[in-house]
């Protein structure tokens, strides 16, 4: 473990509240998810269908994107393509300035976190307000989300109260209902006066050009209907082939994310306001972002693009629930982030993330799309380890490779290693091991290797028995 990841982990572990808070979240969400899935009799078959739909999309992503774009244009939307985060932000800024917009209301969108859209808009003189409660607090605190579904899981109620008190001069309280009311009072004006609403999309249906948003707070619906311009920023991988597929995903996503059978709002957007319609935006812009996704498509981690951002893998991950989202250092934390971030940002600088997993497989088991995250982590390790693993590990692996297929040499080396370790043991245990193994003995004793191997004990037993028989 090197550099900044180690520092972030150190910081996370030094926070006495983080671990227990994440542990409690994990237990609660796991139970809720299990109960919600239990109410869905054919859920394993649905997961198979979801996986098949996502893999079908990825098998011909350009084709699905072409269909999607054509349907969007038929529906009256403007379609923009962005290769990079900067290009996507520029498109948004151009729409804003071209329409003399000064206020943007945003609903929750991870992809806008990925592009740092708020910073770009503010630099262009446009005020942005996050309207998802969690994201609103994150914005007030000048923080970043630490979970893709529960952005402020790292904060306590008291901390939320303090942030609102300091930034909005509200009376100090830690009562969630009161804090929610304070936020609602302030956001109401934003919804009513914003020139532009910006949202992400949970799904884009290629067959119909439908954009689907899955939300709980109602802010998503305000953002997509009240302002005169609605901008959707979405990654190119968010497509699914058909509306029938959407039915499958709407059953799986809320159950996986929050343990709900259905979220409070499932919003389907099929274009801007049409003649005679009472509400909806005059303009609908859809920005399709690549930003490294094509590179992931061409790598061994292409499957990760099937992720529907439910966050279930985080809730069950023993590493995520120990170090929290900020330790992952980028937009997407947890198991999915450990694959996605090196893909989007480059493996060389982010090789610590795939290495920080015990490969326990809980993420694979819980994933509604059955993404084989451990397999992808192994692939990333395979691509980075030979050049980036710590020196001691590379030396050890070279030595291991030299002896593992030579049983005599292997036995000699194992024997020497046993002897060396035993030299530091007392009563059969090692309290302080040397070198890299000291990371082990910092918290646990190391059982001393046995004076004699199992094979030697076995051979002795065999000889003794043969003598008895004779």
């Amino acid at each position, binding site marked *: 473990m090197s550099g900044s990841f180690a520092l972030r982990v150190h910081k996370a572990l030094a926070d006495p509240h983080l*671990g227990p808070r994440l542990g409690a979240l994990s237990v609660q969400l796991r139970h809720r998810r299990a109960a919600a899935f239990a109410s869905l009799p054919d859920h394993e078959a649905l997961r198979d269908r979801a996986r098949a739909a996502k893999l079908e999309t990825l098998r011909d992503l350009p084709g699905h994107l072409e269909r999607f774009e054509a349907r969007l244009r038929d529906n009256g939307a403007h379609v923009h393509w962005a290769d990079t985060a900067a290009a996507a932000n520029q498109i948004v800024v151009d729409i804003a300035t071209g329409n003399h917009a000064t206020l943007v209301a945003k609903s929750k969108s991870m992809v806008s976190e990925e592009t740092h859209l708020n910073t770009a808009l503010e630099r262009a003189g446009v005020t942005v307000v996050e309207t998802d409660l969690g994201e609103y607090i994150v914005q007030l605190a000048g923080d970043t989300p630490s979970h893709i579904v529960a952005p402020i899981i790292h904060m306590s109620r008291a901390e939320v109260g303090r942030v609102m008190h300091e930034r909005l001069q509200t009376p100090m309280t830690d009562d969630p209902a009161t804090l929610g009311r304070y936020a609602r009072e302030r956001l109401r004006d934003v919804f009513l006066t914003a020139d532009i609403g910006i949202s992400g999309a949970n799904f884009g249906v290629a067959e119909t050009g439908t954009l689907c948003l899955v939300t709980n707070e109602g802010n998503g619906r305000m953002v997509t209907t009240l302002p005169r311009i609605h901008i959707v920023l979405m990654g190119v991988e968010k497509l699914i082939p058909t509306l029938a597929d959407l039915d499958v995903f709407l059953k799986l996503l809320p159950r996986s994310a929050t343990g709900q059978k259905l979220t409070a709002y499932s919003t389907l957007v099929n274009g801007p306001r049409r003649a005679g319609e009472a509400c909806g935006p005059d303009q609908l812009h859809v920005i399709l972002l690549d930003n490294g996704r094509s590179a992931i498509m061409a790598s061994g981690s292409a499957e990760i693009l099937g992720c529907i951002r439910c966050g279930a893998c985080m809730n069950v991950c023993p590493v995520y629930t120990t170090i929290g989202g900020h330790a992952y250092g980028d937009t997407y934390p947890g198991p999915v982030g450990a694959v996605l971030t090196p893909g989007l940002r480059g493996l060389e600088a982010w090789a610590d993330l795939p290495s920080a997993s*015990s490969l326990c497989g809980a993420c694979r088991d819980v994933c509604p799309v059955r993404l084989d995250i451990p397999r992808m982590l192994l692939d990333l390790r395979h691509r980075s380890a030979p050049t980036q693993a710590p020196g001691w590990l590379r030396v050890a692996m070279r030595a291991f490779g030299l002896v593992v297929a030579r049983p005599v040499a292997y036995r000699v080396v194992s024997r020497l290693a046993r002897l060396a370790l035993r030299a530091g043991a007392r009563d059969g245990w090692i309290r302080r091991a040397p070198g890299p193994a000291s990371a082990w003995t910092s918290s646990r004793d190391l059982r001393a290797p046995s004076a004699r191997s199992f094979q030697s004990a076995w051979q002795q037993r065999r000889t003794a028995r043969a003598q008895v028989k004779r």
Partner: protein
Amino acid sequence: MQVQLFHTCLINDFAPEVGLAVVRVLERLGCQVEVPLAQTCCGQPAFNAGFQNVARVAARYTIDVLERTEGAIVIPSGSCADMLIHQFEALFTDDDAWRPRARAVAARCHEFSAFVSRHPGFASLAPRLEATVAYHPSCHLLRGLGIDDEPRAILATIQDVQVARMDQAEDCCGFGGLFSVKHGDISSRMLDRKIADVTATGAARLVSCDMGCLLNLGGRLRRIGSPVVAQHLAEILDESLT
């Protein structure tokens, strides 16, 4: 019935008594146990650390050694069994010569608890032991091989053994092989959580089917001065049969 014991490197170097317990249990079932003495290590440490070429050297060698033997191959470790049963084949996806050989060896491999619980001789054993036990389902056993009912069934068969319910039993203990050294601080926190859940059960023994997890759990139990004993399933079963 002849069986080959793939004893695993951890049992060979750290816990020969577990290997002997495995042998005794298998013999009680009527198996004629053979130990291929040329075996070394399945290569899992290299595989998990991303050194796939090194892992392939170990895999080819292990396949070669085991091909020369006959009968079922019993492996007293969920993660080593998962390595031989699933990952060997994955290492040779693009290798038409080795893939079928990996598959043929994998077809003969059985994790210890699965082998024992399905053995026709198991029903006629009369294991008995007074003990309270917490069972830790190791990750590669539970999620890699899908084996959970089998070890629990074995424990349930032992007369007078009380198996305590453990919260978050399916959570990783923080071992993860080299993970426990490369990310020792994260691993330690995961281990602490697990130990708290183990302690809360009030059980006197902690049983698992993986030596790696047991070294990790046992090392922490010893460090904190806990009286809980970490044991391999083979050890408690062997003890209950004597």
